[in-house]
């Protein structure tokens, strides 16, 4: 009970809300860094995933990229980047960028390449060119999956930004790492609360954004997709493996 009291007074203390080590500054650092990394990953990965999906080429390479990405521990990647780029925001940014690319490229590829062949053929039959099929049929239908990839990338990037404190960068992870060094359990716990709150918040926010991307024309899928996306982490897991995604899609078709 005393511990909880200490936690409450830690959050109530004015000094934790001011200056370079204050919560607002650490939160801003964390969000700006994560946002920049996800945006850069989008710029690099989205066109590649969409174009390769449209051409239905390179699927094996993309799945392999995602698998290799999963096998390299993000902590190791971060420390490697630190050895190459030294102290500062660069190693954190580049690690987060590298982590953000695979989920985005995989989901864009799967989303576009798995668009119903009949829908594509109808569009062709109506006289659409390849580019028009991509713009008016494939991308709108793939959008929910593309957003699932963005959601996975976003959650993973925000999570790994926490480890940035280990290589002497800022962000909310600082409270946990400093708390370990100072053997300050209250600080450790408060840092964990802040990091967990931010992660769950980002997950829920991106899940909401994902639901907004569902085209009204496919609301037949709405019920099942809505259930799936209302579950935190559901997309995070599903988008790890295209096979699971396909399976889910088939289920949805069967139910409609």
């Amino acid at each position, binding site marked *: 009970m005393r511990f909880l009291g200490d936690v409450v007074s830690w959050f109530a203390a004015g000094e934790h809300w001011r200056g370079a080590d204050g919560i607002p500054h650490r939160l801003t650092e964390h969000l700006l860094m994560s946002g920049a990394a996800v945006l850069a990953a989008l710029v690099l990965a989205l066109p590649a995933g969409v174009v390769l999906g449209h051409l239905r080429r390179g699927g094996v390479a993309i799945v392999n990229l995602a698998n290799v990405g999963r*096998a390299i521990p993000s*902590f190791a990647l971060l*420390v490697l980047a630190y050895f190459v780029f030294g102290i500062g925001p660069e190693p954190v940014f580049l690690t987060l960028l590298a982590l953000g690319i695979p989920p985005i490229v995989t989901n864009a590829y799967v989303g576009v390449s798995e668009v119903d062949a009949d829908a594509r053929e109808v569009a062709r039959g109506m006289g659409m060119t390849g580019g028009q099929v991509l713009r008016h049929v494939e991308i709108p239908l793939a959008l929910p999956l593309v957003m699932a990839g963005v959601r996975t990338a976003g959650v993973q990037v925000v999570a790994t930004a926490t480890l940035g404190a280990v290589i002497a960068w800022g962000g909310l992870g600082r409270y946990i790492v400093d708390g*370990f060094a100072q053997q300050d*359990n209250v600080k450790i716990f408060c840092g964990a609360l802040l990091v967990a709150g931010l992660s769950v918040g980002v997950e829920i926010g991106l899940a909401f954004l994902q639901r907004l991307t569902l085209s009204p024309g496919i609301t037949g899928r709405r019920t099942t997709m809505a259930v799936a996306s209302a*579950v935190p982490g559901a997309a995070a*897991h599903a988008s790890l493996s295209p096979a699971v995604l396909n399976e889910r899609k088939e289920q949805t078709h069967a139910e409609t």
Partner: protein
Amino acid sequence: MLGANGPESWIWWSWVGDHLGDIGTAVREHLELTAIAVALGLVIALPLAIVVHRWRAWTTPVFAVTGIVYTIPSLALFAFFVPVTGLSRTTAEIALVGYTLLILIRNTATGLAGVSPDVREAAQGMGFGPVAQLLRVELPLAVPAVIAGIRIATVTTIGLVTVTALIGQGGLGDFILDGLNRDFKTPLVVGTVLSVALAVTADLLLLLLQHALTPWSRRRTA
């Protein structure tokens, strides 16, 4: 790689040679932490997956809770339990088990749901009760999905175990941390390469296990 091999190289072979014992210990710790986490995860996840499969009302609460746990970054999840269980192996395992649950439950439940209604009807026609049907028909047919889940959970856990070095629990993360603290590349490279090698090897072994456990799926493809 250029010039003489020494402390400044990415990998200094004589350091590696002098520390083979430590490397072996770290690999063993890494594997132990991973195996305990995945095994305990399975013990908790299998019953929950069956519950979710049988009683739909449980789906949302089970996936909401395990989903939230899955979303929390590893450093924070370790940190939550440090005030309670200290810098201990228990702290590490609680978090590691937590991460496996969403993956294992989702895959198992998907596998159980994928059993064809015809098969279920045939089992009923043969006089199987609900329990026999579950144990002798549905679970065996769900094995490939369960093992797919174990593979993802294992590879993920091997990566996460590198972070447990931050709460003093050994494993290959110790080398990564040591390299960072001493500005010394060789332990970092050793820790990273071995961690990736463990993940890839474990994934392949589990794939072989899946083939061995489901001879019927092999026969179909042959």
